[in-house]
């Protein structure tokens, strides 16, 4: 990156550190923080969507739909979420490939599962074997995002379901008395009012989601944990920048990153809660009214 870094063996002190921290692999390490942020940016809205649908399904009058929604909500309660992560990443991949297999290779006679392997025809491989490495990485990351969205969607459904039930019944009855249809009551009264009840739960989920991002490492994505392992391990003299085992420092840096991220999120969410509580018939809203008066 800098011209003086051309020959690392001549460097020492500050210059060595500067060149070391801007080496090609370190830049990849910094980009991987972007991977984490992309994961959060994509997962959060998708999980909110999944959760919203789950909560609506659970409230539905149709028995089948309601059972489906409740099963989705319940699934994350008794079973550790990491099991879902491990499961969905493989299961989704195999489901997609099996689907493609039946579409593209209808004449294929060999069984897909033999007990020791999972084998689909070459045309059904996602991405194709010949595809460049980057596509394999993108596909792996996409699977991870969908998995995160499914699991966190179930948590979100729990929170939103509770929030919908927390909206005072009288509000809905008043709306009904004014002749609003079920759909109108839902759209104009229930949904706008539920957010303030959902916010504590959603804030909590956001913090949990941040803390779940290192699990990307388990799902095979080259994330910040991967690079911290890779870069921190001791390097012999055959490397451009030899050093001892520095993993402790790299992980301390990750710890600091997560603590800072959590702290900033807490402050922002606190402000948001204050804004949404304004004028609400809740304890927080009442306290704000009294403080102003």
């Amino acid at each position: 990156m800098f011209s003086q870094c051309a020959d690392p063996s001549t460097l020492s002190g500050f210059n060595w550190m500067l060149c070391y921290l801007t080496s090609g692999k370190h830049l990849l390490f910094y980009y991987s923080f972007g991977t984490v942020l992309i994961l959060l940016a994509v997962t959060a809205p998708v999980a909110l969507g999944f959760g919203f649908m789950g909560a609506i399904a659970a409230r539905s009058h149709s028995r089948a739909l309601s059972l489906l929604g409740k099963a989705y909500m319940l699934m994350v309660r008794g079973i550790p979420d990491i099991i879902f992560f491990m499961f969905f990443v493989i299961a989704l991949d195999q489901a997609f490939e099996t689907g493609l297999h039946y579409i593209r290779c209808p004449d294929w006679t060999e069984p897909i599962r033999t007990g020791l392997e999972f084998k689909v025809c070459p045309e059904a491989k996602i991405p194709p074997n010949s595809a460049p490495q980057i596509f394999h990485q993108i596909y792996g990351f996409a699977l991870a995002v969908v998995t995160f969205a499914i699991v966190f969607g179930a948590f979100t459904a729990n929170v939103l379901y509770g929030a919908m039930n927390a909206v005072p019944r009288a509000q809905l009855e008043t709306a009904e008395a004014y002749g609003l249809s079920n759909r109108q009551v839902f759209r104009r009264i229930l949904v706008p009012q539920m957010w303030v009840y959902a916010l504590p739960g959603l804030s909590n989920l956001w913090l949990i989601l941040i803390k779940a991002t290192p699990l990307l490492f388990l799902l095979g994505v080259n994330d910040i944990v991967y690079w911290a392992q890779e870069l921190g391990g001791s390097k012999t003299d055959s490397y451009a920048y030899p050093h001892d085992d520095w993993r402790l420092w790299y992980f301390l840096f990750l710890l600091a990153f997560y603590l800072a991220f959590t702290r900033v999120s807490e402050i922002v969410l606190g402000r948001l809660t204050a804004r949404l509580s304004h004028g609400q018939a809740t304890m927080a809203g009442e306290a704000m009214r009294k403080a102003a008066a």
Partner: protein
Amino acid sequence: MTMTCAETIAAYAFRSIGLGERMLPKTGFTLCEQFTLIGSGLIWNIYYGALALFAGFFLANALALAKSARSPWLRKPAEWFIFTFRGSPLFIQFFLGYQAFVLLPKSGIDLLGVTIHTDWLTKAWCGALVVLFLNTAAYSAEIFYGALRSVPKGDLEAADAYGITGFKRFRRILWPTMLRLGWPAYTNEAIFLFHATTLVFFSSFPAFRQQGDALYYASYFADKTYNPFIPYPIVGFYFICLTLTLTFAFNAVNKRLNRHLPSNQRARIRLRPQLIR
């Protein structure tokens, strides 16, 4: 050579703690083998969960008291401890803990003539337990701190009126009420602590001679058979049983803590997802 299910159970039921057959199954992978070996791994989940929870309970009480203390010398360290462990992923804490434990001198530390062994800390059974212990202590301390702050003012005034003060007031009035108010949330913490124990062998801590927890064996089977649809539901089934047992046990304690209250004022335990840390 095929084994009957009874033989499989005899060979693998305690495989996770090093008893029975040395080699893990390499072919076949019957349902019985998967059930037995994954169940055997559950021993470790229960070991970590139970010990960390037990030891963490005492530290959590101390931390909750320290956090509500007036003196900043007590309050600040407790606040920082709780924030550090609650604000960062357990996964990173495992990595960091392992790296730190590895750096300790191998021969042990001499302290006043007594040698403290440090090599244990790099082993999962001890090192991961220490991390889990500190982690659950921080989460529980926050719960107990919140409960301590919501002890009704009237209770304390009544204690004052009866002349109950000092440690006696804490032991007879404050502490039982704190426990009672915090118990439903603490039940959740306990359940999710047990769930978190599945992370141990996926973080830095190596599994000694393939002796791992339930998820370790489940992922072993999934890797070997390329079929996630059998081992993962099995480990899920085991955890549902574990969750139900825990809920039952904590409910019994909750009943006892609430026994003096009229039935309509008793706190109910509700499972809330709090998940990954």
